């Protein structure tokens, strides 16, 4: 690893922990719904009165899950409706037509499930109204939903023989009002300072300093690549003298896109676009803001269960996995690409250039900051990108794939990372608890058949979705015809798409044309079940744990902090989380790597 990469990773993690710790303690206060905050509390209670909600009534897990599903169901319909009606709605300076039904459906599920997979290109599809109200709105709500579930699960551990796990409406209101809105406002202002745009102007036509000539694949009217009789794409030469600059209210959407681990870019190029991520400094803080709330929630967890060491242990396991795997990407991307080397391209690190594999990366970030961004965006369920993962080295591209296939539990999404990791902790405790001869217990709560049943569903959902959808795509013409690279890499693209969707990440290995009815509907299904088929069993676990007594710690209790538990948790995440994907990975990036370097 280069000194630059080490320094970047080191500073980022130090600053992250320094900021996340106080935020975590604050998040713990938000989770305890008794804490009030001056005049904002009046607003909070005004909202409850308006909606006719009694903030003091606590829900059992079924009611909680029902409220959550209703809220997200209505959210999906709303986002769908706005896209389908955007011609009749205001703030559409480019007069974009209504979005097609399958794409609108995919996008609606995508933003509600905190995936933010984008089959569309924002600047050529969505009106400002759609971006600001429907998409940005869901950026807040989906993150708040994640936080609510995390709070509910933590309460399940922390409480003592109760039937309830909190009030869903209170949890999302407080999460949005006290955490996401203030943080996003501050961060949006910072981004604007760095040059991120925020306006409602129509797009600007500007002349290029240097006219550009390039060749591109011809497309048919419906956007599919035009192919000749041999199946190769038909190319044409294009010279452009002017460029259309897409504008819009970017900063306000950008801040929550990262803080809420949503990742759906205003522009198609996402955080690689200079209007979304203009400077190395903005890039650094974008990476930081992605990790901020998932990290802080670990501290909030420790605080709320009354033992900070528990939070540190979870965070320790996450950090170790992350450092190890991000190092692999950093090293892989700093390598010279053999194919470019054959063309005598200088890829060495020198005083004038950072070097490494620069294909698909922005020169203002370089290989390190791009590789690290890729690791961060996939270790969390963010999915924003500042470089094209498709162009990474095989191993560099495999790590983001693996990080998603962990089930997005290494930092993970806002809330979802913590609750996912806690499920793995339950599993680790179950196996290890048996090994020391006691009915397993975690944080004083016995882990019994019901918890194991729900845990099993949680660990089953994503591998089953990813693998069977991938297999389905491979078996159908509709699936294989979207592949641009018909080889191991093309297989990796499909695997990446479904890993990303089912794990609610949303980043894409470009190169797969996923804006087709087949992929739009299959991916939407993967996203919906990848989100809610996890949340419901997790809420069930929360409810079941809440009803149990909290046992006292004795010398016979397995300690769930400390090095041994961290090692155990990592082993379980690796063995149970990733072992399922080994054959698929072998046929994708691994064989690609071996082929590339065997030459």
């Amino acid at each position, binding site marked *: 690893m280069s000194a630059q990469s080490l320094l970047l990773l080191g500073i980022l993690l130090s600053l992250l922990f320094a900021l996340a710790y106080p935020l975590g303690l604050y998040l713990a206060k938000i989770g305890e719904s008794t804490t009030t905050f001056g005049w904002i509390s009046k607003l909070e209670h005004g909202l409850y009165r308006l909606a006719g909600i009694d903030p003091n009534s606590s829900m059992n897990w079924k009611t909680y899950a029902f409220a959550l599903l209703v809220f997200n169901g209505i959210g999906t319909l709303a986002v769908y409706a706005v896209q389908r009606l955007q011609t009749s709605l205001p703030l559409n300076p480019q007069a974009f037509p209504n979005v097609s039904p399958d794409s609108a459906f995919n996008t609606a599920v995508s933003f509600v499930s905190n995936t933010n997979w984008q089959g569309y290109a924002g600047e050529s599809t969505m009106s400002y109204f759609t971006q600001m109200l429907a998409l940005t709105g869901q950026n807040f709500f989906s993150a708040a939903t994640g936080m609510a579930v995390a709070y509910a699960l933590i309460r399940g551990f922390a409480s003592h023989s109760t039937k309830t796990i909190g009030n869903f409406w209170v949890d999302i209101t407080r999460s949005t009002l006290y955490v996401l809105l203030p943080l996003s406002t501050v961060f949006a202002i910072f981004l604007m300072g760095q040059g991120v745009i925020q306006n409602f102007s129509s797009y600007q036509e500007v002349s290029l300093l240097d006219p550009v000539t390039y060749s591109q694949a011809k497309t048919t009217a419906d956007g599919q690549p035009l192919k000749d009789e041999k199946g190769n794409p038909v190319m044409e030469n294009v010279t452009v003298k002017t460029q259309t600059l897409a504008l819009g209210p970017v900063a306000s959407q950008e801040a929550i896109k990262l803080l809420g681990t949503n990742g759906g870019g205003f522009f198609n190029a996402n955080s690689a676009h200079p209007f979304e991520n203009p400077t190395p400094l903005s890039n650094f803080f974008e990476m930081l803001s992605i990790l901020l709330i998932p990290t802080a929630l670990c501290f909030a967890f420790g605080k709320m269960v009354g033992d900070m060491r528990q939070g540190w242990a979870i965070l320790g396991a996450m950090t170790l996995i992350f450092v190890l795997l991000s190092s692999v990407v950093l090293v892989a991307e700093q390598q010279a690409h053999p194919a470019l080397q054959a063309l005598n391209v200088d890829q060495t690190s020198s005083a004038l250039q950072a070097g490494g594999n620069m294909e698909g990366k922005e020169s203002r970030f370089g290989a390190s900051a791009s590789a690290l961004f890729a690791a961060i965006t996939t270790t969390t369920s963010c999915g924003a990108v500042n470089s094209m993962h498709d162009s990474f080295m095989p191993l560099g591209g495999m790590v983001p794939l693996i990080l998603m296939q962990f089930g997005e539990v290494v930092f993970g999404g806002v809330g979802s990372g913590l609750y996912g990791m806690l499920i793995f902790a339950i599993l680790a405790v179950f196996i290890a608890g048996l090994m*020391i001869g006691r009915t397993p217990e975690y944080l004083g709560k016995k882990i019994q058949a019901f918890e*194991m049943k729900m845990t099993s569903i949680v660990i089953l959902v994503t591998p089953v979705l990813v693998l069977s959808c991938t297999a389905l795509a491979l078996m159908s013409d509709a699936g294989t015809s979207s592949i641009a690279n018909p080889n191991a890499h093309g297989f990796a693209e499909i695997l990446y798409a479904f890993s990303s969707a089912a794990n609610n990440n949303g980043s894409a290995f470009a190169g797969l044309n996923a804006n087709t009815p087949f992929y739009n509907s299959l991916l939407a299904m993967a996203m919906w079940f990848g989100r809610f088929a996890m949340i419901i069993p997790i809420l069930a676990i929360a409810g079941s744990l809440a009803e149990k007594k909290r046992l006292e710690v004795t010398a016979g209790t397995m300690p769930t902090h400390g090095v041994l538990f961290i090692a155990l948790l990592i082993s379980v995440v690796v063995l149970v989380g990733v072992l399922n994907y080994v054959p698929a990975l072998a046929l994708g990036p691994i*064989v690609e790597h071996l082929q590339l370097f065997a030459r």
Partner: protein
Amino acid sequence: MHVSESHSSRQRMNLFDSRLLMPAIVSAFKKLHPRTQWRSPVMFVVYIGSILTSLLFIQSLLGKGEASPSFILATAIWLWFTVLFANFAESLAESRSKAQAASLRALKKTVIAKKLATPKHGAAWEEISAGELRKGDVVLVETGDVIPVDGEVIEGIATVDESAITGESAPVIRESGGDFSAVTGGTRVLSDWLVVRIVVNPGEAFIDRMIAMVEGAKRQKTPNEIALTILLIALTIVFLVVTVTLLPMSLFAVETAKLGEPVSVTVLIALLVCLIPTTIGGLLSTIGVAGMSRMMQANVIATSGRAVEAAGDVDVLLLDKTGTITLGNRQASDFMPAPNVSEAQLADAAQLASLADETPEGRSIVVLAKQRFNIREREMEGLHAVFVPFTAQTRMSGVNIGESTILGERAIRKGAADTMKAYVEALGHVFPPEVTRAVEDIARRGSTPLVVVDGDRVMGAVELKDIVKGGIKERFAELRRMGIKTVMITGDNRLTAAAIAAEAGVDDFLAEATPEEKLRLIRSYQAQGRLVAMTGDGTNDAPALAQADVAVAMNSGTQAAKEAGNMVDLDSNPTKLLEIVEIGKQMLMTRGSLTTFSIANDIAKYFAIIPAAFTTTYPQLNLLNVMHLSSPSSAIMSAVIFNALIIVALIPLALKGVKYRAVGAALLLQRNLLIYGLGGVIVPFVGIKLIDMILTGLSFV
């Protein structure tokens, strides 16, 4: 004759006793019935895989096979072996239990009972079959007779051979009243006679429960077993999806690389069987059956596997002081007279007060008086003495002498210091401070003071000494390391209790315990979320036994105690609780360790099978063949064979259980993770390589 026979039948059996091997092998084949296989979902998948590969073999013989017939046949055979090995393990454990049950059932031979017309020795009796006896009937059992059904002695004293039930050849005394009044059906009276009231109806007796438990062990799953089964099913489903989806992936790879053959169904089945947790799946029920069997060997009957498992979770152990912590009963060791009373006078009064007292303490006073001052036992009748027994109301005992004389009654009383103080003060006298001091001294030494009062004169105190059992302190230290808190229960006052508690090294004690106090203590621990175990034998223990999570009743105890408990210790050894806890823990540990081992094994199996399965399409993948297995088919065969043989290799561990060490949870976990986790990663690499070398050396592949 009977003694030696029954004893030998309850001897411990070797792991692979030849008498058990053959029936186990036969039964392994019988268990191939689908309904039996369905009971273990993991093994059911292997079973289906075996059938499928067998069909594929037949297909290949017809010339349309997807691979060479010999390869498919070899795979099919080893998959069948995998199923059979798991069956064999279960059969072996069951046959051990069955042998134990059979030796018990031999005791149930029809016994002719002598049913008494009236519940009195000497009354007329008629011969009826033991099976016809009902609760409440009264029978006479004389020398050489077998006690027909469980009961309670209401008259008589006799020596009884209980070896058939307990395995202990020394005969025991059974007598009416007190804590030795319970007799068990199937045991034999060696001398004298007993009048026994039957306390159970047919089919509810001890032996019936024992046989039912041993035979039913395999049918009921314990809570942790259920939870583990759910996890194993989930893992099986995941790996099923992994292997099924691998076929389209392989087809796509072949299509795009335009090289090689798609992976065959045989290889996919082999991969599936290797990946699913067959090791633990195949041995899961074996571990449960073996755990029950170990309990039997420890001479403990549990009413359910659930109780055995709960024993492993116990946090708090309530132990009766007497018999558990201290040696049996207290012995009088010293006379401490009041001022102006000689030691001999005190001894004389104490002896008189204890003459009719049949408690061990009372007898020991008589013995001490004889040893010290040669005071002979006197006849109660000759003294015109009337025994005043101990009652819960008076809380004292003694004698009234010479009630018909003109001098009036001479009332001698003995009892606990506070009771006697109240008694003396009620008579209008002062309790001498010297005696109070002596009482405190005695209590501080951990002994029990007994104050003797003759008429209105306080004679002094008798010291009853408690002797703490040797080695008990070390056991408690061990329990503390296991994370189990020990609480001593005693009727003694706080001072005495504290002294003995300190000497024995228990964590806490409950002094002056009443049944209500015990119950309250258990409930308060349970409210804190702790799991409480206790032992008991008396009827007054029954409520507490019923409340405790793990309640071990002594076989010598009363019927009420036995019914309230969820385990019965046939040896009536109160320290047995420690062993029970260990057996409970072992059962869970064995399951956890084998699960870890099973999952960790998958890494090596991937390295063996993945390169082999796809090497024709992507030759580069052979770089992952880190074990350098000689050929693709040898690699797959080696993995499958290893997967089958590891089950056999682990049968002894499943039967014996993973050894429990009281070193605290963290160290224990570290140790087991190293052995079964890291070991589980490494062992298959070595094993698969060895099998590959053997297969290649013998040129089987």
